[in-house]
């Protein structure tokens, strides 16, 4: 068979194999919208709690975020295949969601969520952990940079005034949720645009 096969065609076959394997494993970039959505949820909760609803602002905002995530995810990717890598990354984010969903309402309802510095530091550290673990699994430097920003925000939140701590939190949300999410969505769209139909 290879009598008629040119070197260029063989190289093209090799690159087709690599791109298709990568395609099957590509997951996080398709989830860019969730980072943007949760960034907006955090902003909503912060604005709402600034208006005086400190106890209910976070649990209600997060509940809205969970409902929207589940509905959009089921509409978008009902036929997505499962991979070990995808399950590992998904498990980290689900575990983070459960931890935050249990911890923060409990702190709010018990009246122990009084120190804003501790609140921001805990959220930032949790998000740094989840982003860091995902980045190490996926070997994704951009997400690792987000993890570093969250870790820096967690440490910075322990110092300075309330206002300074809040500015650090808002900036970290903007960089690691909104900007990173939009970057993921653009990368996903570009990847889809580059794909050409494959014929037999």
């Amino acid at each position, binding site marked *: 068979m290879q009598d008629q096969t040119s070197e260029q065609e063989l190289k093209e076959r*090799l690159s087709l194999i690599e791109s298709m394997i990568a395609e099957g494993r590509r997951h996080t970039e398709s989830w860019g919208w969730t980072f943007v959505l949760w960034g907006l949820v955090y902003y909503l909760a912060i604005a709402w709690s600034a208006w005086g609803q400190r106890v209910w602002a976070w649990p209600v905002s997060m509940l809205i975020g969970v409902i929207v995530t589940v509905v959009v995810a089921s509409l978008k990717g009902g036929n997505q295949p499962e991979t070990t890598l995808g399950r590992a990354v998904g498990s980290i984010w689900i575990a983070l969601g459960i931890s935050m969903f249990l911890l923060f309402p409990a702190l709010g309802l018990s009246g122990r969520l009084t120190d804003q510095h501790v609140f921001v530091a805990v959220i930032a550290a949790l998000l740094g952990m989840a982003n860091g673990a995902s980045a190490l699994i996926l070997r994704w430097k951009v997400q690792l940079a987000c993890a570093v920003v969250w870790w820096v925000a967690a440490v910075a939140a322990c110092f300075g005034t309330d206002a300074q701590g809040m500015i650090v939190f808002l900036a970290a949300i903007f960089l690691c949720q909104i900007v990173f999410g939009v970057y993921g969505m653009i990368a996903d769209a570009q990847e889809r645009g580059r794909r050409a139909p494959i014929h037999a």
Partner: protein
Amino acid sequence: MRRSAGGALQSMPDLPELNPVVHGRLRLALLSLLSGVEEAEFTWLRAKTEATDGNLGAQLLKLEEAGYLTVKKKFVLRKPQTLYRITETGRQALTEYVQALKQLLGPAIDA
């Protein structure tokens, strides 16, 4: 490795043959896609390859007949779903194909 004036590779006794079942572009893409996931739906494979239903179905059938894929049909919310999974034989055939490709290309692989 010898090449003709047109760049075609000359057949030599010590060079490996490329498996014709795996060599087809769409079949190769399907095996590669399935090697990276546990199992995949027909619609997902169609979206990733952008092939037509008829062509995709025909190539999947060839791979199934060669023993490289298994097919499972089920209903989810009363909608039919066809799931494909690569077999050990399929994985082995893909690995051997990649090794043969690399052997054929030789030093040209990095060029």
